[in-house]
Every structure is written in C-alpha cells, then in structure tokens.
C-alpha cells in the first residue's frame, strides 16, 4: 500500500468527490418533465444518484489503497467487508450498461471472443468490459479477488472462473446446496464451515487481520439495512402505493452492492421516512392507481421508463416484485450471536436457490398481501434459474387465484432481444384481460 496512493484517495474521498457532486448538481440540465400519469417523484432519487456516482468515482482511486473484490449479488459480502475490500458488483455494473442501452455493444465484444449469445447478458457485458476496458462509469478497478456464490445461478462460477483465468487472481466460491425440500442441518454446517475456512485466504489477500467485533458490527448493519429495505417494500401495501416497482429497481442498488456499510444504512433510513410520509399523506407513485400488479424476474433495464409509462398511463402500478423482495426475504435469519449458521440460512434459502413450491407459496402470499390484480412475468434466457418454471407458476397462480397474467420474452440487459411490436401487443392484450376481469 503506497502512502501516496493512500493520501490521494483520502483527498479525493473527502474533498474531490463532494466537489464533483456539487459540480454535477450545478451543471444539471433542466429536469425532464414528469408525465401526468405519475405522482410527484421521490426526493430520495437525488441522494441515491449521489451515492452510486460517488461509489464508482472513488473506485478509480482505490488501487494501491484498498484491495478490490468483484462480488456476485447473492454472495455473503459481510465477510469481505470485515477485511475492508472495496467491492464492485459486475451485475450492478452490467445493469447500468443495460440501462444506458449499451448492452448489445458490450455483449458483441464478448461474442467476438467466442462467448455464446445464449450466455447471460450480465456475464457477456462484464466480459466485454474486461476485454475492452469500456465502461460508462469512467474506469473500474481491476479485482484482486473474485467472490461468487452459486446460490443465484451456476453461470457465475464459470463466468468468474474465466475472469480468474484472464487476470490470474484468486477466486473464492461459496457453494450453496439447492434447497430441494428444506435446508438440512448438514447443508447449514457445510456452508458455515466454508465461511470460516475463507478467513485465512481473505487475510492473506487483504493483508489484514480478522477481528470478530468488526465482523459482528458489519453483520448487524447488514441485517438492519435489509430489514429497513423490507419495511420500505412493505409500505407499498398502501393504496395508492407510495412508489412503483420501477422506482424500487433503482433503489435496490445500495442493498445489493453496499449492504453492511453505513452509507447504505443511512440511505434506507431516509428513503423509509419518505415513503412512510407519502403513505401518511396518501401520495401515490402514479396519479390514479386503479390496478395493482406483481412483477416476476429481473428488470428489463433498457425499458424501465417505457414500461413504467405504459402502465402508469393505464392507471396500473406494480406494487411488488419477487426480484426486489429477494434482498429482504431471508435476512431475518441473520443473527450476530450465530454468525456462521445464520449466514448459511440467509444465503442458502434465497428465492433462486429454493424450490418452485417455495416460490409459488411466496408469490401467492405477496399477491394477497399487496392486493394484486394481475401479474407480469419477464422470461429471460439470461437468467435461466429465474425463468425456468415460470409457465408452471403462471398456470398455478392463474388457476388458483383467477389472476390475469402475461409472460414477456425479453432480456435483462441485451436490448437486441426486445421486440417492441410483439411486446406491445402482448401487453395491450394483457391490459384488456385485466380491465375485463375487474370490471366485466
């Protein structure tokens, strides 16, 4: 660790980043007019943008100061935080590229190196970034360590293996046995042991010592933050809901990529206060909420605005999603007094590592709790664990709850897979069914 790099990082962190944020605020163009169908936008959006810009901006100055880890969204990051790794989430970065409608560009770079178009677009974008150095975030620091868990999919292991090979760096894989019926004692112990075995490796890579009290503090912060996130989502039970799920897709970023850090905890306290106030005052995310919908699967990042507007204009609001719920669903298991086994429960039982019956029961519960009238499922070949089984889920849900549903065939970040006219017809037909079912 060089003194010069450290000094530079400190100056940038304390003075450079705040100055940049202030400057960005100044040069900000006139805000885009809000279409009539929407209610007043959330004040917290501004703070969210600041946090994320600052995170990516500081990342440029991190090499030589902190060790950098690239982490998957479902990995038990709390352990890494105890060693002060600067964490980068390639999935979050790929979503950012997708939202900027640059996904196809990055994907084709990876495809040019032989990665199949059938591979997840998050992986292709990340590999495209690695191969070309391109990023909308200015510059991403190269990792010193890779940390992945197959609790979200098997692809991450092979994707991270490719990076480990390319950069010749260590890869830690957290193996989470699939919960076919329920998690066994053996599964929990197996996972808890893996976590403890990681400590000496993490100490070696980070050149830092593991302190239990530091780790416990982080775990506690992560737990509290996730619970606050859960409370924010629960606030959407209100009619009208104080935000749409399309807002929540954006506000999800800190809980995914900054949980365990005070910045995330502070942020969600602010957001929670805002949504609670909106509920108390009856302020809705859309100006006239007549129908309430549930979303299944990852966002279609390059079409968030299109979809938000399409539905808001038809007085339809997405009030819940299995996707946003994933970072609140199992965090209740976190327990500072039993760090290892409680982390095994939290990270082993998440929706994508759990059986279809679990998912069906969860969705039915969400549909009832949030007074949902209809369901939109995004089917994407990028996320096979999420998309396989959707037809059966749809069948079971429409039959049991008499709920209109539609499946959209698209992609999370590769906009080439989007077929506007096809999707439009499906969505309009879905709206016709929904209107018929509620008023027929």
């Amino acid at each position, binding site marked *: 660790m060089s003194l010069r790099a450290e000094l530079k990082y400190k100056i940038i962190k304390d003075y450079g980043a705040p100055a940049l944020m202030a400057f960005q605020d100044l040069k900000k163009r006139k805000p885009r007019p809000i279409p009539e169908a929407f209610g007043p936008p959330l004040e917290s959006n501004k703070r969210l943008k600041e946090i994320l810009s600052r995170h990516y901006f500081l990342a440029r100055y991190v090499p030589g100061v902190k060790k950098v880890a690239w982490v998957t969204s479902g990995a038990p990051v709390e352990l890494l935080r105890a060693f002060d790794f600067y964490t980068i989430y390639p999935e979050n970065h790929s979503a950012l590229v997708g939202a900027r409608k640059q996904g196809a560009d990055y994907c084709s770079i990876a495809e040019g190196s032989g990665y199949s178009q059938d591979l997840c677009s998050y992986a292709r974008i990340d590999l495209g970034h690695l191969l070309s150095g391109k990023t909308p975030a200015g510059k991403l620091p190269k990792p010193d360590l890779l940390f992945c868990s197959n609790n979200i999919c098997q692809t991450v292991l092979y994707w991270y293996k490719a990076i480990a090979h390319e950069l010749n760096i260590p890869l830690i894989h957290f193996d989470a046995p699939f919960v076919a019926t329920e998690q066994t004692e053996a599964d929990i112990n197996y996972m808890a042991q893996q976590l403890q075995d990681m400590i000496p490796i993490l100490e070696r890579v980070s050149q830092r010592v593991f302190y239990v009290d530091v780790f416990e503090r982080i775990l506690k912060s992560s737990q509290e933050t996730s619970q606050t996130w859960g409370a924010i989502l629960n606030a959407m039970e209100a009619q009208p809901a104080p935000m749409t799920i399309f807002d929540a897709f954006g506000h999800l970023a800190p809980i995914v990529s900054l949980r365990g850090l005070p910045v995330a905890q502070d942020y969600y306290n602010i957001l929670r206060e805002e949504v609670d106030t909106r509920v108390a005052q009856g302020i809705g995310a859309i100006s006239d909420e007549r129908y309430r919908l549930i979303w299944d699967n990852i966002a279609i990042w390059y079409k968030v605005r299109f979809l938000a507007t399409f539905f808001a204009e038809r007085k339809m609001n997405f009030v819940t999603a299995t996707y946003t719920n994933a970072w609140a669903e199992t965090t209740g298991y976190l327990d500072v007094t039993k760090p290892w086994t409680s982390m095994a429960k939290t990270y082993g039982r998440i929706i994508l590592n759990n059986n279809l019956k679990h998912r069906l029961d969860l969705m039915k519960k969400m549909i009832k709790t949030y007074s949902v009238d209809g369901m939109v499922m995004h089917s994407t070949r990028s996320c096979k664990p999420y998309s396989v089984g959707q037809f059966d889920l749809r*069948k079971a849900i429409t039959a049991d709850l008499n709920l209109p549903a539609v499946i959209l065939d698209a992609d999370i970040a590769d906009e080439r897979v989007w077929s506007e*006219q096809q999707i439009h017809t499906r969505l309009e*037909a879905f709206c016709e069914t929904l209107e018929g079912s509620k008023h027929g």
Partner: protein
Amino acid sequence: MVDLYFAGVDVGSLSTDVVIIDGGSNVLSEVVIPTGVNGSEAAENAFNSALGLAKLTRESIVAVTATGYGRASVAFATGKTTEISCHGVGAHHLFPKTGTVIDIGGQDSKVIQVDSQGRMLDFTMNDKCAAGTGRFLEVMATRLELDLDELSSPLNISGESAPISSTCTVFAESEVISLLAKHTPREHIVHGLQRSIVNRIWSMVASIGIEGEVTLTGGVANNQGLVKLLEEKLGLPLNIPENPQTVGALGAAQIACRKY
C-alpha cells in the same frame, strides 16, 4: 339498432381485412387485400371496397374498431383493440360454444381462452420467431415453388413426412433445400412442414390448456392438411370458419358494436 352499421379493420402483416356488420350482427361485406408497404392506405382502400360492396356510405358507419399490427395507422378508427381480443370475440360469435381459439396469423400465432361471452380470459403467443406462423409456410412455399393452395391440397394430407427439426424459419429453409437436393418428394416435405407447425402450436395449446370447443382462425385454417394433423394431435375436431382470415376483423366490428 338494425339501421346502425359497424366496421372492423384488421391491418395484419400480410393482409388487411375489413368486415362491415349491422346492429343485428349480420355481415354485410367482407374484404381481404394485401397490406403491402402502406398500412393506412391498405386500410383506406379495403374500407372503401367494403363500403361499396355493402352499398353504404362512410357516414352510415357509426363506429370502427381497428386491430392488428397496423391498428395505430387506421386514421378513421373510433377505437383500437388488440387482435387477440378480436379473434376471441369473432370466433365466439361464429361458434358460440367456443372456449379456445387458435389463431395462426401471418406474423404470429396465439391460443386464446374465452368465457361464455367471448371475452378473453387468458392467452399465449409464439415467442419472437416466425416458426409456427403463416410467414413460415409462405417462405417454404416459395422455396418449394408451390403456391399456398398447393401447399394445402388434400393430396398432401397423408403419407410419409420428411423430418424438419429446426425451429428457426431460415434454418428450416436450409433443411428443405438439403431435402430437395436429396430428391425427397415434395409431398413429404410439405407434410413435414405442416407437422412442424402443428408441433409448435400444440406446445402453446398445452401451456394454456383447452376449454370448450376449439375454433381455428387465421389464413392458415385454409390449409386442409395442417387442419387434419392438428385435429389428430389435439384429439378433437376443430371449428373452421368459412372465412378464417376475416375473423379478427369480424371480432373488431362486434367490439365496435358492443362499445357503441
């Protein structure tokens, strides 16, 4: 309201269809023309011909519902509805016991479940791929140097079928080319193509389930070989409208009337 007239205009990817009905749901005229490159012009022309056939003036039509991919380009429409709802309503009007509609259109195919009023309850569509659609047959007909009628002639109903495994239209076309190069009889190839479409449709039907009588709509319903294969695969008889191509426009006209 027998003196009131309603029109449905279905601007599809291949054809533009217009149906004019009176308030008693009697069909006064039906017109089918190719859509070509200008949907709004095709809609205008088809509408004028339909008015001529029905001996009506433009002013006598009190409501027009546009449907199909080009529904947004129909300037004279008073309402718009998706072709999915329209096929449901149209098929139900022709065969009131219809619970399931299979529409094989030019650009897509769909399976629609309707209630006892013809209102759509649920639907499923083919994914972004032309296999299992009218376009698929059109491409293959060109390659086989047959016209669409020849492709559906009863001659091809039974007998051997050449395997067509690809679900991609372009790749299926290259399979056809290699079969032709091996001197496979054209009837066998046609049979294989029909089977390939039927398999695609069947998986959509399976995903949504069958309720009530099944009615087949869209131009592909004229393909007798395909109809027979589909009936075999589903294990039940299909209702085939006299003019399967105009069922969407008929449904649109009915919707115009209901909403009036």
